[in-house]
């Protein structure tokens, strides 16, 4: 049973001019639990607070109701005041009789009556308040970055520079990601490798960064500040410590006909390979599916030629378990599969390629050594058609509903580069809209049109028909001239939509991070918390959160790093005490609460419950206080009322309702 003190503030004349403060004091005195009531000019002032502290001591109060301005103004003040008076800060409730009463009502009787009712509701609530303690949990001062593309590298560098150890987990044999596959970057036409490689080197050399390539996250447990992550380091078949990166093994490998992932399958690699020349680490892996030694047991040439003795066919996958305080997801993207867009003849003609494939074709280290040529016959193309929005902004459900954002710009880049290097080649771009928001972006696009004579056609391509002579017949419409277009092209480039890396769903599940229908990770708030997952301690970097170009990715990577640093810099995390709590005796273990929890704060435990003498093994919900943010979604999803929210319990809210309706 509480001993409640009620303190009514005049707020100068802000409240007292319309609310009869003295009457409020009189009226609330007979409310259940109220031991003491008084009013004062400015309750929030030092003198006002002193009055509260004095009253607490004198009347042995254990609950406070302050009738004053909005709790958004001074709830914190009065909670601190309560603490100073020696009572739990969560035993304080504010009745908002200024913003919600005196300021909006003119009639004194009416306003006074309402103020009394608001006070009653607060008193009814405090009668059911329980002291709450903010929990504390430690923070492991180490971060994990999942994904070693430009986003992951940048995030890792920023965190590492702030002095915290970071691990990068990359599933490919080298870090670098999509950016390493690009030739030039818009809008400045820098060479992609030239700007990325130094970053890669820096990351590899950074004392605070550990890179796990050819590795995958296998399991995540724990919560903000205290994640435990199991990482699978796939067997590389190379002793990384011994390998000098001389490359002889790759040269001598007899199995050179394996399609190169790095070149999007347009070129080949050996079975023992580094994906590209600047790979970091510069240590090859053996593709066990391609390697003769692994397939037949005969061969072993690489082992013979390796002077360092680094080849180890007996290696197995190893598991690394590490603790982290924060996790940044930077899993990036891939191009969508084009099997649903066969009208563009991608599967039928080698000369229909995606933009990313074009990047490789144009790259000096690519399959054609940088010469623009048809992949079917090696001839130089004269007529190239670019098709925009393949699978993006798709209304019919075949592709993605969203705009992939980067395609307009890279297509302009490709067109411009081709026209620059091969002025005799005609370039036509079919587009729905050209979207170029961004610094120097529109200028870039206009240069392509105006200075380089790229032919932009607003309209969609219905079909690409490979001709017997090897040409490609492009059927499209020009929406501006409103006419059908038939165009013979030597090459067609598809700006395929990008989609989050398919592995991200598995990772999101492990992290209990929420994910949207398109597999993009959801941010905690679309505007105000764009680089945080709703799940505490999980941060988002790069395209895993939504389509982005390189500068945006780098900016977001930095932002995610800052958020992670902010977390790692803390020694202790204070947890919000107004969290959900499950009554194990009532819990059905039905999972409805976990289904609506945006934070993955609810887990289930099978344990023995003593229900009034009956012992039973039951599945019951457990709330992780470090993760729960106290929204209360679970409390309504719970049919039995087992789940309740501390500080806003069912009985408390009902008491408020009752007091108001009385």
């Amino acid at each position, binding site marked *: 049973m509480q001993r409640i003190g009620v303190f009514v503030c005049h707020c100068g004349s802000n409240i007292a001019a319309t609310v009869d403060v003295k009457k409020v004091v009189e009226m609330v005195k007979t409310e259940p639990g109220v031991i003491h009531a008084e009013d004062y000019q400015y309750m929030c002032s030092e003198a006002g607070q002193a009055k509260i502290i004095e009253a607490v001591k004198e009347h042995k109060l254990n609950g406070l109701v302050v009738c004053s301005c909005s709790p958004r103004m001074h709830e914190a003040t009065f909670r601190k005041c309560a603490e100073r008076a020696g009572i739990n800060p969560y035993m304080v409730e504010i009745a908002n009789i200024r913003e919600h009463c005196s300021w909006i009502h003119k009639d004194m009787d009416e306003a006074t009556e309402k103020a009394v009712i608001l006070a009653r509701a607060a008193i009814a609530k405090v009668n059911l308040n329980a002291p709450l303690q903010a929990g504390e949990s430690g923070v492991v001062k180490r971060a994990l970055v999942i994904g070693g593309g430009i986003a992951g590298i940048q995030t890792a560098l920023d965190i590492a520079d702030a002095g915290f150890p970071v691990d990068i987990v990359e599933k490919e044999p080298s870090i670098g990601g999509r950016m390493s596959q690009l030739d030039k970057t818009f809008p400045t036409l820098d060479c992609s490798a030239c700007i990325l490689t130094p970053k890669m080197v820096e990351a590899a050399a950074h004392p605070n960064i550990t890179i796990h390539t050819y590795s995958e996250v296998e399991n995540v447990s724990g919560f903000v500040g205290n994640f435990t992550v199991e990482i699978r380091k796939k067997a590389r078949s190379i002793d990384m410590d011994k390998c000098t990166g001389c490359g002889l093994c790759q040269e001598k490998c007899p199995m050179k006909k394996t399609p190169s992932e790095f070149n999007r399958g347009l070129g080949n690699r050996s079975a023992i390979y580094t994906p590209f020349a600047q790979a970091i680490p510069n240590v090859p892996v053996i593709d066990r599916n391609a390697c003769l030694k692994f397939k037949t047991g005969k061969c072993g040439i690489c082992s013979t030629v390796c002077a360092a003795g680094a080849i180890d066919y007996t290696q197995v996958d190893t598991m690394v378990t590490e603790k982290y305080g924060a996790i940044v997801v930077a899993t990036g993207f891939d191009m969508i599969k084009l099997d649903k867009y066969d009208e563009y003849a991608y599967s039928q003609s080698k000369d229909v390629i995606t933009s990313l494939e074009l990047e490789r074709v144009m790259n000096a280290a690519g399959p054609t050594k940088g010469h623009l040529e048809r992949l079917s016959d090696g001839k130089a193309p004269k007529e190239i058609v670019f098709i925009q929005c393949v699978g993006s902004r798709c209304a019919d459900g075949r592709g993605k509903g969203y705009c992939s954002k980067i395609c307009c710009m890279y297509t302009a880049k490709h067109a411009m580069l081709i026209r620059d290097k091969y002025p005799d080649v005609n370039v036509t771009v079919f587009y729905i809209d050209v979207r170029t928001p961004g610094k120097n972006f529109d200028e870039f696009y206009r240069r392509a049109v105006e200075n380089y004579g790229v032919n932009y056609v607003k309209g969609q391509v219905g079909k690409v028909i490979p001709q017997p002579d090897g040409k490609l017949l492009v059927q499209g419409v020009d929406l501006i001239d409103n006419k059908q277009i038939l165009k013979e092209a030597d090459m067609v480039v598809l700006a395929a939509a990008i989609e989050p890396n398919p592995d991200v769903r598995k990772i999101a599940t492990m992290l209990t991070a929420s994910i949207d229908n398109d597999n993009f990770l959801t941010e905690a708030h679309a505007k105000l918390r764009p680089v945080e997952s709703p799940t505490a301690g999980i941060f988002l970097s790069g395209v895993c959160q939504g389509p982005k170009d390189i500068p945006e990715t780098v900016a977001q990577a930095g932002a995610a790093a800052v958020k992670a640093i902010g977390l790692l810099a803390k020694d202790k995390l204070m947890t919000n005490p107004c969290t959900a709590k499950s009554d194990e005796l009532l819990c059905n273990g039905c999972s409805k609460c976990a289904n609506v929890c945006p934070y993955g704060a609810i887990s289930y435990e099978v344990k023995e419950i003593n229900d009034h003498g009956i012992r*039973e093994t039951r599945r019951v919900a457990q709330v992780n206080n470090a993760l729960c943010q106290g929204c209360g979604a679970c409390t309504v999803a719970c*049919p039995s009322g087992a789940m309740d929210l501390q500080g806003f319990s069912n009985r408390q809210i009902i008491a408020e309702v009752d007091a108001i309706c009385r």
Partner: protein
Amino acid sequence: MQKIVERAKELLADGTVNRVLGWKKGDMCFNPEPAFFETAEDLDENFVYGGFCGANLSKYMIDASKLEGKTLVLLKPCDTYSFNQLINEHRVDREKAYIIGVGCKGKLNIETIKQSGVKGILNITENGDMLNIETLYGNTEMKYSDALLERCHVCKGKEHKIYDELIGESQDTSDRERFAEVEKIEKMSPEEKFAFFQKELSKCIRCNACRNVCPACSCRKCVFDSTKFDSSQKANTDSFEEKMFHIIRAFHVAGRCTDCGECSRVCPQGIPLHLFNRKFIKDINEFYGEYQAGADVDAKGPLTEYTFGDCEPSIVKERG
């Protein structure tokens, strides 16, 4: 029926299952009761499966899941939805159940027969599409299809959604529009609606049969029995409480109710309780897309999902 008994005996004998959950002959042909059988003799002597075996056995599996070994449970097509929903909610253990999906040609409702004016029933025998009824006051007959439970007229289909094996033939019984009754009420004026429900609900005696039989109402302790909401009520001391209980009960099972119709079957006062659940189902279908609870064991359920473009609550007003 003999096939079921034979198979059940086999499964008991080879140790696949430790017990059989089925129906036991009553002392009248129309009052079989759910029962557990542990021996072949017991099955031979007492097992029955017939037109009056309407009880949905899936809820008994909550307790049976805690027993040693597997339980052979007989589920009619509509019962399998309930069972799936219970798996979804972790209330039953799939591994502890051996499910024989039994055929169903519609289940009979003794109340319907009595309400047709037949009194003093001594025996009822099936004769093709007809029921021969022997009473204290002479013999009469009735069409099988006229004596069906309400739910059988709006049957969801005779496909078993989960089973280990199937025994017996089914027969389609659906001959009414599932939402016709709901639509009829929706078209009423507010006064008529209010009068309709007031009249029906005022009959409620708060016996809790609807709740206790409901496979979705599987809470260990109902909010109406606990002090958590200060809502514990044992009697409808005011007309408000009748509504409160039934609205909240329907709300708690919304998106989880498979429309098995047990609530309406068991109500001693004949309150058409399915009208509440079916209203929610109809709304869910209209607002959030067709959804059948229990059809998919992994479904999240409409009230624990959302889309950005969901309709606003004001749709209720707009719809008129």
